[in-house]
Structures are given as C-alpha cells and as structure tokens.
C-alpha cells in the first residue's frame, strides 16, 4: 500500500495538502477548547507551510512529486510560446517520424529474422566468380541435380533447402475464364520441418511430398492468402486449382507469421520443388539454397564439402564445352562457394535496396540532427532569457540537479510529443514508401509489424534526441552563477558561440542532404531521358497465353484480327516486351571464328515488329512470315560492331553456340534497349518467332499494339475480349503500357529522388528557420550595442555586416564541411548513380546556391530588424 499510496498522493497533491491543513486546524481548535491561547497554539506549529511540506514529504514520493511539478511547469512553458513550441515539436516529429519509418523499412527488408526456429542457424549458399566480362559476380541460384549431390554430401552437418523465387502465376479454381494471379513459390518439402513451422490448418509438406519429379501435385497456402482469398474457410482443404498443365490439391495452410523467404514479396502458394520443370535439368538455375546447420555444426566445414561437390560437377560439365577460350574455362572452374548467414531470408529486393535504404536512413538521420540543432538553439536562447529565473531558483536553494531536471523535463516533453506525432507519421509513411518500391501492378508486399522492435527504437530515439538537444542547455542553465546572472550576465558571447557551432553543423548536414538529393535527382533525370531506341508512345503490350501451344500462323492471324479493330494502328508479336526484365542470351560465333567474349541477347519477334516498335531498319530487309528460327536474324548496330568490326553484316552469318544454331543476317537495325536502362546497349539479334520444323507451336507470346489513342489503356478491355475471339485457345494474362514497363526500370531511382528531394526541402526549411532564429536572437541580444553604434554614426551597411558576419562565416564553414562529407560519402553510394559524378560542377553548385539563398532569406528579417532599431528609444529603455 505504501509506495502505491504515495504515488497516488502525487497525483492528488492538492487534496493531500488540504487534508493536512484540515488536520492541523482541527488540532488547533482542540487546543483552544482545552484552554490554550489561540496565538500560542498556532505558534506551536511554526510555519504552517513548513509543517505542510514536512508532512507532505512523508506521504508522497518526493522525486515523483517534483517531477510532476516540473512536468506541469514545463507544459506551461511550452504553452506560453505556442508558435515556437509547435514549430519545434513539428520539426522534431518530422525527423523522428522519418527516422522511425526508415528504420521500419530497413528492419523489415534487411534485419528482421524470419519467424522460424533458431534463425541464427540459417545460412545461404552463394557462388562467387568472374563473369565473361571479367567482373566479380556473386550469384545465389542453383541447379537441382547438383543440389541433390550437395545435400547428400553435407547431410550429417546441415540440411539444404531449395526455395525458388516467388513469382506471380496464373491459376484458376474453376474454368479457364476465371484465371487469377497468385504468388507461387516452390520449396523443398522438408523446409517446413526444418524451420519448425506449424500448420494453421491441415498439414504442411514433409520429405515425402518432394520425392519424385512431377508426382506431388499438392499445395500449401499462406495464412494471408487463405484470409484474403477464402475468408479463412476451413473447407479449403481438398480444393483443387489448375496451374500450368497441372491440377493441385490444397493440403494445408501455413502459420500466420511465415510469409515466405523473400522480404519484399509474400508467397501465396507453396508447391513442392518436384513440381518445377527444372528439377531434372542440370543447366537450369532456378532456386536459392538455404543451409540449415545442425546444432553444433560450423559453416566452414559445410562450405568446404559444398565446394568439393561443386568442383567435381563443374569439372564434368566443362568436358562438354568445346572451343571455349582458356581464360573463360578457368573463370568457370575457379568459382568459390560461400556460406553466409541468412536469418532474415533472401530476396532481390534486399540486394537492390540495401544501399538505397542505407543512404535514405542517413539522410533522414541528418534531417533529424538538423531539427535537433534547431531545438537546441531554441532552448539555449530560452535559457538565456531565463537566466534570471534560474539564478533566483539557485539563490533560494534549488540544487544543481534539480535545475537540470527542470530543463530536461521540458526537453523530454518536447521529445515525447514529437515522438507521438512522429509515430503517426511513421505509421502512415512506411506503407506509403513500400507501395512505391515496385511498379504498381506488382507491388512490394512487406510485413511491417509494429512490435517491441519498433517501440524500442522509437523510445531509444526519443531519449537520444532529448539528450542531444536538451542536455547541453540544461547543464548550462544549471551552471548559472546567481550573483552575476542577477547583475545582468557575465559572458554574453558564450551562448552565441554554442549557437554558432550548431549553425555550422546544421549547414554542413543540410549541404550533405542537398548534395546527395541532387545526385539522386540528376540520376533519375538522366535515366528517364535516356533514349531507348524505340517509341513507347501509345503502345500496349498484351501478354497472352495459349491453353495448348498453337502454331505460329494462328498467332499471326490473331495479330491480323487485332489490327482491323478501331483505334489500332499496328500490331506485332514478340516473346516478351522490351525492357520487361526478361532476356535470353547466348554466345555467338561469327563467320566461323571461335565464340566471342560478349554475350548477345536474343528476342523472337514477328514480321512487322520493327515497324510497330518504330525501330529503324538501316540495311537489308525485315523478317518475313516464312522466316524461321534458326535460320534468319536481324541484328543491331552493337551486334555488328562486336562481331563484325562495324561492317555491314547483312548477308553474313553467325552461330549461336548453345545448340549450334545457324543464322543468316538479313537486316541491320538501329540500337534499342533490351534489358535495362543502365547497361550499355547489348549486341542483340531479333530472330523469328516461328520455329523451324513441322510441329512448331507457341505457348505464350506478347502482342504489341500501337494505338491511335492518347491513353492506350482505354482500348484494354476491348482487346482483352478480342484476343480469345480471334482464337479461343488464347487468353490475355496481363496488359501493360510500354511506358509503364519503361518507368518500372526506374522505380528505385524515382523513389530515391522523390524522397531525397522531400527531405532536402525539409532540411533547407529547417536550417533556414534555425538560421533566422539565431540571427534574430543575436540582434535582440545586441540591440543596445547596435543602438549605441547607430547613435555614434554607424551606417546601416556596417550594422548589417555586424549582425551577419559571424553567422555567415559559420555558414561558410558548414558548407565546406558538408562538401567534404559529401565527397567522402558519395563513394559508398556510387552504384546508385547513373551518369553523374559527385565532382560535377552542377551537382556542387546547386546545394551551394540553395544554401546561400536560404541563408540570405533567413538573414533578411534580422537585418531589417537591426537596421530599424531606433537608437533613441533603445538607449532610453530600462
């Protein structure tokens, strides 16, 4: 009861005081009744205030009581200066919110361990080697026959688990007309057991579900998919769906927290690896390999065994490579197996966003620091204004720590208010950013739980921020010497020195933020203005699948059908759209010479594809319907340059080394981008869709439709209906504009430049406000000095110089420091830039000019204020 009642008494402090008073009054009354002199009875108590304090201290937790008083006092202080407090809280909230949000993303993508048993025993296998161009490259995909050998080799020390990439697939629970999309992942049957995951419904796969190729048509749903698609209907067990050419039966639902092994993508449907067509191919890399160490096993010996298996498999394979140059054979053989921790799973998003997110995290931290510097300056200025109050408190006996507590409580109030608002900001902004990580039709799906990790981070951030901006002003305030403070202060410059140092730091951080933001924006600008070599205007792509593979001529007929529709200008076919991220490549041997070092890209297209894509033909002719693959090819300029020394290759021939396919070049076309916007344009051969042979047929293809509509998507519903009408076996599985595909190439750059720009603006505004505050304060503090100077004849110009020179030299120092920081840090994020160098003049000038303009604007009110000081009035005051 005791501690609790004392804590309760803190809250009902007023009532407690009243009760104590009442008891004492009652005592005095009793004394008077017994015949004592009223005055004497009252005097016996001494000071009633003291009596009350003494009794009160017995009945409350003293420190809590003083804390309560400080909180109330601090709250009043904040309320007294509503505008400055609100500005401080909002700028801090923005900083804290952005930091929390960034941490949420970084945690979700890179740090958070998967919800499996003992995630620290989970490793992943990588392969490091030289690619044909001579660059060091690390890959994480594997072939199944090799995986089997590896699994057997290490089975005493570790369990190997194969997991494919999570991809969107078409499936249906009913007829073909009700196709829908779901994210599918092939996993080793023993994965669930090795991760010790429990089913939410039914059962999960075991080793027995993954034994023989193509004979385990079973599926496990994710909890999220089960919820979204089936409303958690337990009757889902035993239901079947068509996927590809197979019918799968649902046997269970996985536990709620397990969303797959790829941060950034959530799996809807798990299938056994044996159902993947690649399990029997030794040249098909399609899955990642997790290494689950057995208790007590070390990664190094496991790695050595894996390396040995890899070496022997590669040794066998290399025997089949005829005519390879020695260097390439060596590269192929000298690859190293790595086994690295993978507790948080593995995904392409981790690889792509690791640096970007880190850079973003640093940017938001800088913004937070700028906001902290602002608030620290505000507190310092206020501490100056309150020096007399502090001195008075010290004179009547307040201890030093009591004053530190007083000021820190005010900081804490600021920080906690800011964190609450910032928390709301983070709650909103993290999903906002996630929604923009991937192109809109294939959004990133990320678990963003608000759990103790988030809470701990926010709390640590709050306390850190509070100490950062509150501790120095608090210590200074408490160090006040009453005698000198009451006389009017001793060293008025010491506070200004602190504020100036903070200004320099702010400008340095601001410069850094602007500099990096400028680089990101320039990168995005360069990339989006990168010529693609084809026209994406009014172009629709219709990814189409056939229930059974159809002869090419039917595909061509369907294209004819579409071409006749209103609003359609031209139609062509290709295996897939350009820049969609899909590509096929191979080595090429031209004119009977040995194969070249550089990979050439291949794309199967229909006649008329060049016209539809608006890629100019330089020499020769377009493909004809009778041309076949292999047989005929169009090549681009890069191809001619790489394999024919830039001579006109029309009429010459080459061989694709895989399968020794022979092609005659019938046309030379302008370069166009195939795979991505960043790489130099690759040598590319456009080959016919139609395969050579009597039973040639195509299972899927993409119609490219050039429309006459400004917004080609208005034709999409009509085209979706017309394709099956042209031939009932065909079904459109996805419609996108070519523009959308092109933009998807720059999603990361767009996101980065958008966020960096936003934070750059915030940083400039905060730094500008900070500068304004400090200048205004220094004018206020020196107004008497300025008045005297004016009275003895100083000109406006020299007054303006007087008040700004210190601060502007600080701005200069800060800018130089920021520049140095920027140059030093740009190296770490160079891979995120495209065609911009940190040393470019324009990337350097932009932040410098922005800061200069912001500084001038911020200085203006203070200068006007200083120049307008009326010396007569000023000297008469006080």
């Amino acid at each position, binding site marked *: 009861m005791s501690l609790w009642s004392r804590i309760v008494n803190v809250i009902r402090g007023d009532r407690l005081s009243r009760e104590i008073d009442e008891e004492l*009054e*009652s005592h005095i009354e009793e*004394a008077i009744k*017994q015949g004592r002199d009223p005055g004497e009875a009252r005097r016996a*108590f001494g000071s009633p205030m003291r*009596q009350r304090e*003494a*009794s009160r*201290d017995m*009945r409350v937790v003293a420190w809590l009581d003083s804390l309560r008083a400080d909180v109330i006092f601090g709250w009043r202080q904040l309320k007294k200066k509503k505008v400055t407090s609100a500005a401080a809280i909002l700028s801090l909230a923005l900083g804290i919110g952005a930091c929390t949000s960034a941490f949420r993303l970084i945690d979700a993508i890179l740090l958070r361990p998967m919800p499996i048993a003992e995630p620290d025993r989970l490793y992943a296998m990588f392969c490091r080697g030289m690619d044909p161009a001579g660059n060091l490259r690390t890959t994480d995909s594997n072939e199944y026959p090799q995986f089997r050998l590896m699994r057997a080799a290490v089975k005493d020390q570790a369990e190997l688990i194969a997991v494919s990439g999570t991809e969107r697939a078409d499936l249906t629970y009913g007829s073909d007309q009700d196709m829908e999309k779901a994210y599918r992942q092939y996993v080793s049957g023993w994965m669930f057991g090795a991760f010790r995951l429990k089913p939410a419904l039914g059962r999960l796969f075991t080793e027995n579900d993954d034994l023989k190729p193509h004979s385990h048509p079973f599926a496990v749903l994710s909890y999220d998919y089960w919820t979204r698609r089936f409303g958690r209907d337990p009757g889902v067990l035993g239901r079947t769906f068509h996927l590809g050419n197979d019918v799968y039966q649902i046997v269970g639902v996985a536990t709620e927290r397990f969303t797959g092994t790829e941060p950034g993508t959530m799996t809807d449907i798990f299938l056994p690896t044996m159902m993947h067509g690649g399990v029997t191919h030794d040249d098909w890399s399609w899955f990642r390999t997790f290494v689950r160490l057995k208790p007590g096993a070390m990664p190094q010996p496991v790695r050595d065994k894996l390396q040995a298996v890899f070496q022997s498999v590669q040794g066998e394979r290399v025997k089949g490579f005829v005519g390879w140059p020695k260097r390439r054979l060596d590269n192929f053989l000298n690859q190293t197996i790595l086994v690295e921790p993978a507790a948080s799973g593995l995904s392409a998003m981790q690889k792509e966003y690791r640096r970007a997110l880190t850079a973003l995290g640093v940017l938001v931290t800088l913004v937070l620091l700028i906001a902290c510097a602002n608030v620290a300056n505000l507190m310092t200025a206020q501490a100056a204004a309150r020096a007399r109050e502090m001195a008075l408190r010290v004179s009547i006996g307040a201890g030093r720590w009591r004053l530190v507590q007083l000021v820190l409580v005010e900081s804490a109030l600021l920080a906690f208010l800011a964190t609450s608002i910032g928390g709301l900001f983070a709650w909103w902004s993290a999903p906002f950013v996630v929604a923009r990580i991937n192109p809109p039709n294939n959004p990133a799906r990320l678990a963003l739980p608000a759990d103790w990790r988030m809470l701990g981070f926010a709390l640590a951030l709050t306390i850190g921020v509070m100490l950062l901006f509150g501790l120095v002003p608090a210590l200074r305030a408490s160090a006040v010497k009453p005698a000198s403070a009451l006389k009017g202060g001793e060293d008025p410059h010491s506070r200004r020195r602190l504020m100036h140092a903070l200004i320099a730091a702010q400008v340095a951080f601001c410069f850094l933020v602007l500099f990096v933001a400028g680089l990101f924006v320039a990168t995005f600008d360069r990339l989006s203005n990168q010529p693609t070599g084809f026209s994406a205007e009014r172009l629709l792509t219709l990814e189409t699948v056939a229930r059974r593979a159809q002869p090419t001529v039917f595909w061509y007929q369907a294209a004819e059908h579409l071409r006749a529709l209103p609003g359609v200008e031209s139609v062509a076919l290709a295996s897939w759209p350009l820049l969609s991220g899909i590509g096929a490549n191979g080595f090429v041997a031209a004119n009977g010479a040995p194969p070249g070092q550089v990979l050439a890209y291949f794309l199967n297209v229909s006649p008329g594809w060049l016209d539809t894509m608006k890629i100019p033909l330089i020499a020769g002719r377009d493909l004809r319907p009778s041309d076949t693959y292999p047989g005929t090819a169009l090549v681009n300029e890069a191809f001619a340059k790489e394999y024919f020394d830039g001579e006109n290759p029309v009429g010459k021939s080459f061989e694709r080394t895989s399968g020794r396919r022979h092609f005659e070049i019938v046309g030379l076309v302008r370069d166009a981008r195939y795979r991505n916007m960043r790489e130099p344009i690759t040598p590319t051969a456009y080959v016919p869709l139609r395969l050579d042979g009597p039973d040639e047929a195509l299972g899927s293809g993409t119609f490219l439709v050039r429309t006459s509509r400004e917004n080609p998507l208005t034709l999409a519903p009509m085209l979706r209906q017309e394709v099956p009408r042209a031939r009932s076996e065909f079904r459109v599985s996805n419609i996108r504009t070519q523009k959308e595909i092109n933009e998807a190439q720059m999603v990361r750059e767009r996101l980065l430049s958008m966020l960096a720009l936003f934070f750059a603006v915030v940083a400039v505004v905060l730094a500008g406000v900070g500068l304004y505050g400090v200048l205004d304060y220094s004018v206020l503090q020196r107004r008497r000095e300025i008045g005297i100077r004016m009275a003895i004849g100083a000109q406006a110009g020299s007054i303006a110089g007087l008040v700004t020179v210190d601060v502007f030299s600080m701005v200069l120092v800060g800018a130089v420091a920021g520049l140095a920081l920027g140059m030093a840090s740009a190296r770490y994020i160079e891979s995120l830039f495209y065609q911009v160098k940190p040393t470019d003049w324009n990337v350097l000038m932009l932040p410098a000019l922005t800061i200069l303009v912001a500084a001038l604007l911020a200085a203006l009110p203070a200068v006007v204020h200083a120049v307008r000081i009326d010396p007569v009035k000023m000297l008469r005051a006080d």
Partner: protein
Amino acid sequence: MPKPDSLQGSLDLLVLKILSRRPGLHGYAIMSAIQNMSDEVLRAEEGSLYPALHRMEEAGWIRAKWITKDTGRRARMYELTVAGKKQLAAEESRWEAVTSAVNRVLRMA
C-alpha cells in the same frame, strides 16, 4: 527532516503504545496523553508529532480515518494495525534493551 526533540527517538514507541491502549485518538489527544501520562515531563512538539504520524501511517503501522466532531469539524482518528502491533513489540524490546544497557553503565560508573 523533522528535528529531534526531547523524546530522543522514542516518539514512535509512545504513540504506538498509547494507540494500542486507546484506539481511535486524534493528534491532539495523543499529544495530551503523552503529556498527562508522563506527568508533564514528556512533551511531543506539534512540529514532530504530525510528520511522525504521517510517516507511521505510510509505513502501515497505524491507519487513520476521518470522523466528524460535534463542532462539525472533521478530525483524523488513528488506530493501530496488525503491523503496528508487531512494530510496537519490537520497539518495546529495543527500548528495554537500551534502557537496561544505559542503567548498567550508570551503575558501573
């Protein structure tokens, strides 16, 4: 902290003892009781009595309740708790030990 007075730390003991004999006394009555029973030798100062009462209340040795007197004014009445009885026994034996020790010293000297 309250200043030590003539009772030299025995205030708690006296208050507890008085309350154990006559439960339901207010502050003034306790003060008078100490005065009367000691034939005006011991006197609890108001400035010490109330902080001591409040301290013992927080310690859980005594509890208080408000009653309304005939005059209409409220008074706070104190009585011993179970913990207070234990505390009284402990204080008493401590007192015995101290006084007998002091007496021994006085006899020896």
